């Protein structure tokens, strides 16, 4: 069995955000294309957790949706277990992946009992047909995520946010996936509940040998759960590195800035370099390196030439300053 489970090969996704046709004709408004994901490549090994982090609008959720097939890529290939997901007949591959969404208040049908919510993938994928078998499977799944089998008769509104997220996880697991795409699974939860869900996800990964793609904007959560981390900025990958390496020795200036901006719980009193500026308009990204207007190390080359991802040790960094050795 090859170690690589998922591979993204120069994947891009564009959205047409032009004004309506009539406006374009009458007002001469141009065609506008938003490039939400811009030529990104990474690999995901079996059994590991890769986290994608970045600020709002950086395209991390779009990547998640591209992988599970909610969007089709505009360019590039997504290869799952050695097969292109866009190839004919590859839809069956998607049965092996499931998604967990951010908001457990919106992702569960309020009119369905928990039993039906959790059993839906079992029925749809034809994993079991006898009702007793399905009921057993639901009980087993609910126990696995820390709920009681009796909860299967209740409706989602009877549960708290953390319990609902457990239901979403049970539903995701019921299709017996090997790969879970988790889009901000804990950011709608309170911190003590978040700890419960993160612990549960770690346990399940060890027990079931799952592979996670974990999307989050919270670097502390990511440092807790991820083996490797990809940092996205304006649709591009700025840096991909082992979690330990990334948090100990961030290379890309944007990664450094993000790490610097996290409020410091230890209160060491260290002075933080003030972060300047904001994410530019993705409709009109800066030329060259997208980060150059905010970057303290930007040079002439950064303004004109787009940096390509280059391996530095075990990290992959897209930065001219790092490539030229201008910054450590």
């Amino acid at each position, binding site marked *: 069995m090859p170690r690589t489970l998922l591979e993204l090969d120069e994947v891009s996704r564009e959205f047409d955000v032009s004004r309506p046709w009539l406006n374009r004709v009458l007002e001469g408004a141009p065609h506008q294309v938003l490039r939400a994901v811009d030529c990104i490549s990474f690999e995901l090994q079996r059994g590991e957790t890769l986290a994608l982090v970045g600020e709002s609008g950086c395209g991390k959720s779009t990547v998640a949706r591209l992988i599970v097939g909610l969007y089709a890529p505009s360019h590039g290939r997504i290869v799952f277990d050695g097969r292109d997901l866009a190839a004919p007949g590859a839809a069956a591959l998607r049965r092996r992946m499931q998604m967990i969404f951010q908001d457990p208040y919106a992702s569960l049908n309020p009119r369905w009992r928990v039993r039906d919510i959790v059993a839906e993938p079992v029925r749809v994928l034809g994993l079991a047909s006898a009702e007793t078998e399905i009921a057993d499977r639901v009980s087993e799944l609910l126990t696995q995520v820390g709920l009681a089998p009796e909860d299967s008769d209740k409706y989602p509104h009877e549960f708290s946010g953390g*319990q609902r997220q457990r239901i979403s996880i049970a539903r995701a697991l019921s299709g017996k996936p090997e790969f879970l795409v988790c889009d901000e699974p804990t950011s709608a939860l309170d911190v003590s509940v978040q*700890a419960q869900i*993160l612990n549960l996800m*770690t346990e399940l990964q060890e027990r079931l040998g799952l592979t996670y793609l974990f999307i989050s904007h919270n*670097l502390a959560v990511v440092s807790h759960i991820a083996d490797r981390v990809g940092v996205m900025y304006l649709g591009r990958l700025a840096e991909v590195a082992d979690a330990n*390496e990334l948090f100990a020795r961030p290379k890309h200036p944007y990664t450094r800035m993000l790490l610097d901006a996290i*409020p410091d*719980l230890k209160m060491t009193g260290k002075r933080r370099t003030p972060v300047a500026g*904001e994410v530019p308009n993705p409709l009109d990204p800066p030329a060259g390196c997208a980060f150059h207007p905010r970057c303290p190390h930007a040079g002439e080359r950064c303004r004109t030439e787009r940096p390509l991802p280059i391996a530095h040790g075990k990290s992959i960094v897209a930065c001219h300053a790092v490539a030229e050795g201008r910054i450590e």
Partner: protein
Amino acid sequence: MTPLTKAAPQQNAFAAPHLQPPLLEVRDLRIEFPGRRGTLTAVDGISFSIAPGEVLGVVGESGAGKSLTGMAIIGLLEPPGRIAGGQIRLEGERIDALPHEKMRRIRGRRIGAIFQDPLTALNPLYTIGEQLVETIATHLDVNPAEARSRALALLGEVGIPAPEGRFDHYPHQFSGGMRQRVVIALSICAEPRLIVADEPTTALDVSIQAQIISLLKRLALDHGTAVMLITHDMGVIAETADRVAVMYAGRIAEIGPVREVIHAPRHPYSAGLMGSIPKIALPTDDSGAPGTGPPGGRRTRLVQIEGSMPRLNAIPPGCAFHPRCPKRFERCLRERPELIRTGTTDAACWLHAPDTART
């Protein structure tokens, strides 16, 4: 611009905030929601005070009553919620039972408010300049030209680049972080003595969040404004607050200097809350060698508090936290603990009662 800097900036720079008479004093505040199936008590007898120039952080999970407390202070409690007992004093004057019109004049003039979502706090149909000038003219005795120059100075102070150019822009033309700056400018335009900030950074990205935090902190320091900072993010509290109150199920579980509460929490709930926050643990800087000391994070379990906060209609007797508390004993099930002083912190926990046998 003189008016902004006139407010005796040195006064609070070095003085210990606790030694000054409190600017805001809340005593035994009780907020109830009468309903058909009985009355729910959302905030149950909480007391605290904030000194001039001090930032008091209020943390807790959703439903702990922290936002309601803030709303009660601003006088914007939504019916049927009502203040059912206790007092709120601003500079010694009771403000909890003022008529609507009087409270409206205090709000904005003496108490500023910042809310979570900067878009809904601004009127989309007016330029930010118009909104600032209107607010300034309402609260201060100035002519239009003065109001305008003051508004421009405020925009500069909260860090909006080229304020003249942005003055006539509408809220939708600003990004989230910039809008929150405008909201802050609005809330400080009459130099209020107290700012109630309810989750001011929650809707913002981390890099913007850091900018807003340092802005709030600078305002408290420069103008001697007292700030009540309501948030669920302990990191924000650690960076900004002087003291912190941890709320649980409508009560204060622990209140004390921020360092004490974070590093040596006295209440088992605060301890659990601190433990459940994922931290970026780095190998110590001097170890140097790559690959050593993997960040504590991965594979180590986070401390978790079992269960979840009780609903308002099912708050357990005794200490409300006892069903989830790893250290509960017999007394916690029967008697409700009041705040008990231990060192510089007050914790509502029987573990700290003088007559509890220490082992």
